[in-house]
């Protein structure tokens, strides 16, 4: 099992390198001179040229890429065009805030969505089920940032229960978590429901009932254990979507995380920062996907057998 984990971690490296190359290529498609974009129209030709030399912008793409990767293995992600600070230190400073929000959101989603999805399946076509499914449909369709605005209007501006921006004590975390987590909640509730509906029709559930296991226990002890795989799969994917969404949510709530940093860097054309942030998100997402695969093995012994 450990061999498998190590193998997967090593396999991450080419993927990350590939992503860096991809982003490099994308960034190079920018029309115009990056130096001029950063320094502005007023800057002199010498200043532009100096900047270009300092940042290695005169080298061809593959050379720049290789230099970047080498620097990365040495532990540096370059420095911000704007502030000159080390990109790595900026990212590390903001990383905990983003992870805090992402973790809170997914926990919030999981804690409510799994039971609701399961109960909806057991009481198929009941009022609970129909209402639950309608709410989920709406939850999936709502853009997180719109929900964020609505939450701010209702709970910050009108009711004054929660602050609308910034970070600090737990009250600051509530609204961003809900805004971020509702779409995730809706998706997981739906997959839990459909997974449970399928599992309940399986023969081994009938066997359990024939053994004398009560309806309640059948659900808790037999059914749910077989639902986890699709649920965890979706949860992993949703985590990725949330990571992407932090760019906007952190902006709306003034949450000082990596997403907010990325957005600011994009607007100011600060390429090393943009690159660093996207790479960081990619690594986090990939590690999460690996975690999902490992959890599969614990949940389903058939999968575990494959990993050996």
């Amino acid at each position, binding site marked *: 099992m450990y061999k498998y984990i190590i193998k997967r971690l090593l396999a991450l490296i*080419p*993927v*990350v390198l*590939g*992503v860096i190359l*991809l*982003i490099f290529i*994308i*960034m*190079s*498609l*920018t*029309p115009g001179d990056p130096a001029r974009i950063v320094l502005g129209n007023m800057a002199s030709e010498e200043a532009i040229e100096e900047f270009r030399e300092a940042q290695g912008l005169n080298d061809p793409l593959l050379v720049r890429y290789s230099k970047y990767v080498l620097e990365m293995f040495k532990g540096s992600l370059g420095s911000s065009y704007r502030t000159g600070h080390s990109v790595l230190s900026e990212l590390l400073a903001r990383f905990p805030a983003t992870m805090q929000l992402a973790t809170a959101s997914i926990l919030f989603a999981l804690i409510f969505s799994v039971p609701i999805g399961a109960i909806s399946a057991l009481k198929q076509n009941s009022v609970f089920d129909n209402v639950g499914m309608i709410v989920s*449909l*709406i939850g*999936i*369709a*709502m*853009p*997180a*940032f*719109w929900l964020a*605005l*609505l939450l*701010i*209007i209702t709970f910050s*501006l009108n009711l004054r229960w929660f602050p609308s921006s910034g970070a600090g004590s737990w009250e600051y975390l509530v609204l961003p978590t809900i805004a971020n987590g509702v779409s995730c909640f809706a998706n997981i509730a739906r997959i839990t429901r459909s997974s449970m509906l399928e599992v309940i029709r399986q023969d081994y559930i009938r066997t359990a009932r024939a053994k004398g296991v009560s309806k309640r226990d059948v659900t808790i002890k037999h059914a749910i254990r077989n639902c986890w795989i699709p649920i965890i799969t979706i949860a992993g994917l949703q985590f*990725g*979507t949330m*990571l*992407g*969404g932090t*760019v*906007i949510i952190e*902006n709306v709530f003034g949450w000082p995380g990596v997403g907010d940093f*990325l*957005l600011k860097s*994009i*607007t100011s054309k600060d390429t090393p920062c*943009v690159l660093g942030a*996207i790479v960081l*998100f*990619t690594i986090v*997402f*990939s590690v999460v996907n690996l975690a999902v695969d490992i959890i599969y093995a614990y949940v389903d012994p058939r999968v575990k057998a494959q990993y050996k």
Partner: protein
Amino acid sequence: MKNNVSNSTKYQATPEELAILKKYKKRSWFNETWRGLRKNKGAILGLIIIAILILIVIFADMIYSYENIVIMPDYSIALQGPSSSHPLGTDEFGRDVLARILHGARLSLRIAIASTAISLSIGGIVGAYAGYIGGWFDTVLMRVMDIFLAVPNMLLALAIVAALGPNMFNLIIAIAISDIPRFARILRSSVLSIKDTEFVEASKAAGAGTSTIVFREVIPNCLAQIIVQASIVMAYAIIIAASLSFIGLGVQPPAPEWGAMLSSGREYMRNHNYLVLFPGLAIVITVIAFNMLGDGLRDALDPRLKK
């Protein structure tokens, strides 16, 4: 009447059996799908909403002229709440919100359809060939797809739009590119599942080239899955387009994209929350419609396979 089980293998079907067989043959694929869809109330609702949207797209210009109403400012009536002359109010430039939302539908649908069509074509072809040809070609292509998929979805589109410059065309390209891996995967797995079946072998024996086989035999078989995924992807495209426009990296003002409207409305939301309410509702309704249609299609097309 005795049953003759003779040396020949022909089975003499009784009249009852023939009648039953005839009943099932009449239902063609399309008929069955339509019947299944009709049963699903949500899907029908989705279909109706999309039909309305398409009508709006076609007729929006006649209801509200783009030049005069949608983008022309009139500060004298700025920031008015919903009233009889302006059912959804006016924005900070005095423009009628309802007019902007109706025109915004054109933008959203255009973006959704264009980006989905592009990613479906490119992704589908890439995936189908990869699956069919196999070998290193397949491996390389799939590694590349993995790299694309390793980046959280919206960030990829974000990076592309940021690099190319924010406008609608680049937005479409960005969203299309970020959805290519999904369609590539679907087509590839469909191809793999029927690659070694008999009718493909028969085609090969008849001398059909790779491309012919891919297009004639393989792709029509995955049509069901493609259609379902397409509707889901279109729904998602609308959300991404709105999200990117919200942060200024999508469709630029004064175009009435729903996300962009939310962005400018944000400043005034304290006292004019209708500016934030209605464009958002438009997004939600449209996305729900596509999702319900996609769900309905999935349910209608799947059981058919099981039968």
